[in-house]
């Protein structure tokens, strides 16, 4: 059954969300996400990398992995790290997570328990 929030709780939630979204870290994160979504080179590189990682895992499982395939994956990983759009997104994501943890600590201090872990649904993370 859906939980209905009381008006005060809903209002405080809305203000909290608006301020989070208007913070420097979140603005930068969402801007970098938009850039990544619209960059076909970065997208192609990420797809290639994801495919190569899947292939590598399969080959690792049946012990048919060659040195050349490992080297190819490393080349793709380096290309992704050196891609400004991808690295910009990764850095912005790291910063926004750090910021969110800092904000969550502020909530925890007042409540006396870890709010984030109470929001967790069952299953991994």
């Amino acid at each position, binding site marked *: 059954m*859906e*939980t209905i*929030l*009381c008006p*005060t*709780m809903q*209002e*405080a*939630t809305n*203000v*909290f*969300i*608006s*301020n*989070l*979204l*208007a*913070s*420097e870290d*979140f*603005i930068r994160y*969402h801007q970098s*996400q938009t850039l990544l979504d619209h960059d076909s080179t970065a997208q192609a590189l990420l797809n290639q990398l994801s495919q190569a990682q899947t292939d590598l895992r399969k080959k690792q499982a049946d012990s048919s992995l060659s040195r050349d395939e490992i080297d190819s994956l490393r080349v793709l990983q380096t290309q992704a790290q050196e891609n400004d759009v991808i690295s910009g997104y990764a850095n912005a994501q790291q910063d*926004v*997570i750090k*910021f*969110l*943890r*800092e*904000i*969550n600590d*502020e*909530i925890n201090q*007042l*409540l006396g328990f*870890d*709010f*984030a*872990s*109470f*929001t*967790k*649904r069952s299953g*991994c*993370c």
Partner: protein
Amino acid sequence: MNNQGNEDIEIASTSIVKQAARDFATALAETPQFKAFDLAAYAFRNDQAAQQAIQALQQKQQSLRPLMQLNALSNIQREELQELQSAFTSQPVVQEYFSAQAELTKLCQALGDELSEAIGLNYAAACAASCCG
């Protein structure tokens, strides 16, 4: 929000966001679910029988941990653990605590869902130290 003159973007400073987080936490602390949980937690901490039951259970779990990790408990040890577990969970104050915790968790999950959807990140996962941490 503070307008810091960053072109057309209105940026909220960290102190403003922290204040909004504190207001959010204050509103949560005023809900019936939080108040019930707070009362139940206090009652649990101050109930001698419940505290003795949890200590006995934890001591037994600690002494049997190596065997539990190897899944090598004997039937007698398993029964002992189950009895201590039942003795703990059958305490009215413990049942009230778990029930209040479940209600508060439901509310926090609803809030977490709303936050996650709005910010485009899973709030619980982002704040966890590591996967499932």
